[in-house]
């Protein structure tokens, strides 16, 4: 099994190289540093000197792939590709446009993101599974019918509405929690309560409905019929058999997103003023800070691939039928 995991991990390397080349192409070839400078400095009235200065400050004045003027290894190393793209592999992200180290920002900002996302993930999973199991238990009754109707209605509402109405009701009308902001330590609880509730509620529709389908599919299988045939109570069948087996696809699906929890929630963080990676990314997009966007693209891919790897591993651990080919 270790060989299997190692092989899966090695498979990630070409993907990361692909992502790296793709982002390089997108950010430096399609859109040259000159374009970036012009965009930052204003499109119309900009002198060539100003562009050169802007590029030099950020190290974009080097050749793209091959430096004729440098010696030895420097011919490859002293280029934009090496400095800006290859260095990402050792998590050297360089500096943002405001001069601060992106790596340092990521290290400090991932904790608020995680503090928001982890409760959303755990509470959400519990709520969705409970709701889905309830609907599956009362299948083909009015509870099931209206539960599904509720799910479809809830998934038709934009996440922006959940956030805006949550802020309006809980913070403005009822004054329960602060409308936005963040503080470290135990104070964080007060600021995180609303974003967590909103995060969980906005996911109920699609997740519960999906989990319900999984449970119903599981209930149609032969072993469930056998369990009923041997006279087990419906609750024992549900909790002992259906829940247990239904959790396999649910958990393995959920594990894939665990690494991405570090990335935070883009929209929620910027609405609630939480200084996490999500709001960092949004700010970077809005101020057109390409070096931050590039770093986040790479970080996101790394975390996504880590999630895929975790899924593979958890499958082999949970389900003995998976073969190591």
């Amino acid at each position, binding site marked *: 099994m270790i060989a299997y995991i190692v092989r899966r991990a090695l498979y990630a390397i*070409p*993907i990361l190289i*692909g*992502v790296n080349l*793709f*982002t390089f192409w*997108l*950010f430096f070839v*399609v*859109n040259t540093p000159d*374009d*970036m400078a*012009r*965009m930052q400095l204003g*499109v119309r009235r900009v002198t060539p000197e100003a562009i050169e200065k802007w590029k030099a400050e950020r190290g974009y004045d080097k050749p793209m792939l091959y430096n004729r003027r440098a010696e030895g290894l420097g011919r490859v190393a002293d280029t934009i590709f090496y400095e800006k793209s290859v260095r990402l592999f050792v998590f050297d992200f360089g500096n943002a446009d405001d001069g601060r180290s992106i790596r340092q920002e990521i290290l400090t900002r991932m904790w608020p993101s995680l503090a928001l996302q982890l409760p959303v993930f755990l509470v959400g999973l519990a709520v969705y599974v409970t709701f889905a199991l309830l609907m599956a238990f009362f*299948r*083909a009754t009015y509870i099931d019918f209206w539960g599904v109707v509720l799910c*479809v*209605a809830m*998934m*038709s*509402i*934009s*996440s*922006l*509405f959940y956030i*805006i109405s949550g*802020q*309006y009701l809980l913070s*403005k009308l009822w004054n329960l929690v602060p409308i936005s902001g963040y503080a470290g330590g135990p104070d964080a609880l007060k600021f995180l309560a609303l974003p967590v509730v909103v995060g969980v509620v906005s996911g109920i529709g699609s997740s519960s409905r999906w989990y319900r389908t999984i449970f*119903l*599919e599981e209930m*149609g299988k032969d072993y469930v019929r056998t369990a009923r045939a041997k006279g087990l109570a419906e609750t024992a069948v549900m909790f002992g058999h259906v829940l247990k087996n239904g959790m396999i696809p649910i958990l393995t699906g959920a594990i894939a997103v665990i690494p991405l929890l570090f*990335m935070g929630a*883009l*929209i929620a963080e910027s609405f609630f003023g939480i200084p996490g990676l999500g709001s960092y*990314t*949004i700010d970077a*997009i*809005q101020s*057109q800070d*390409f070096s931050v*966007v*590039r770093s*986040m*693209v790479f970080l*996101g*891919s790394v975390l*996504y*691939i880590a999630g*895929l790897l975790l899924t593979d591993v958890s499958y082999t651990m949970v389900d003995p039928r998976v073969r190591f080919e």
Partner: protein
Amino acid sequence: MPVILWTDVLVFVLAVAVLAYFVHVHRQPHLLIPWRRVTQSAYGMSALVVLTTFVTIGLLDSIHYRPTLESKAGQGTAYSTEVSSVFDALASPLRDRRERTYSAPFATRAYARETLEIPGLDGKVRQVREFPRLTWGGAHLKEEARRNQDVFGRAALGMALAALAWLALAGAVAWRHAHASKRRLREAWRAIWGAETRTPWRAILITAGALLALAGPVLTLCGYYHVLGTDKVGRDVLYLALKSIRTGLVIGTLTTLVMMPFAVLLGIMAGYFRGWVDDLIQYLYTTVNSIPGVLLIAAAILLVQVQLDQHPEFFQTTAQRADLRLLCLCAILGLTSWTGLARLLRGESLKLRELEFIQAAQAFGVRDLRIITRHILPNVMHIVLISLVMDFSGLVLAEAVLSYVGVGVDPSMISFGTMINAARLEMSREPIVWWSLAAAFVFMFALVLSANLFADAVRDAFDPRVRVGALAAA
């Protein structure tokens, strides 16, 4: 002067393709069977009624032209720089009646106090802080106090008209049903209301009735009041909400249209040829998938923005510029979302290529291209169709989020995203400006909910697994 926007062309190409598909289906009994199942689903057909209304508005809003400006004789005709659509012309009472700033629904006075100069009895001009009367909203009223009576009167008139229209519709349906089933009108009527008809006419008529009951009063009122209030620069919110429909529809449909050829081609090739082709395509979609979607879209849109800024020669009007950006957004969304469909098609083709009829074709020496187009493609079309309708609602929702991040449609383009974005600041005003958010919510919810319900009906009718599951449960 007619103006042909890129998205208009694609929208009409799509509309023609859909029509051609239905003509084709009508001639093929085996293709008609699943669609029959769709038409028998009560909620699916109710959703279709609502969707058809939205699509009609969207199509009317997709015929663009530049109105002629009045010019002196001998100067040649000049055209306005503003691009209008047929829908704009129909909704000109909404479009042209602009106030100066916010006003609440059915308001006769503005939302904020202004300093007005009122000539007093003694001839002196006094300055008063007052809520000024609106230029258009309720301007026909002689006494403001009689506003409520006036509104109810007009609403009742609208309701009466709607009831007449609905009765005519229901009568036509009953007559047709009676004619088709060779029964008397009375029996047909009873069958419809007892939900005994194959096509769920009762559900369709109830939905149509609800829509008419909303549209009737709005039609009679919207010429005299701002039914949903006005926004910050005084535009009628009802007009904005109706214009947003086209943007949502374009994003929801064109994106899938753009990505479908890639997904179908690559997915089938990977599953059919296997070997290195499969490895390459799998590598391609894992790589694209691993890049966070929003970031990829953001990066690509920023680049498009740069290109548009540098090439002002691509477009003559701001509408054309906004349209080009919308098209780019669709293309980018398509490029990031083809992976899911490609993966499904790969799996299905892997299964299909092992089946006897394909192996027989191979044994006869039929070329690969022909096997793919003749044997595999028709057998995976249901997956393409299902994913097409299932993706629609997600894309409409995505537009709102992307516009909030600032990488969605052009800020000058009216869309649900830009409406919500503006509404965010309005919520913190005192007194609260709730109407534009509420309007965006209701219209978007109606669009996405009906799309979701219709997609469910289509999936249930086309997905063989669902039917097996339904049989097993029964």
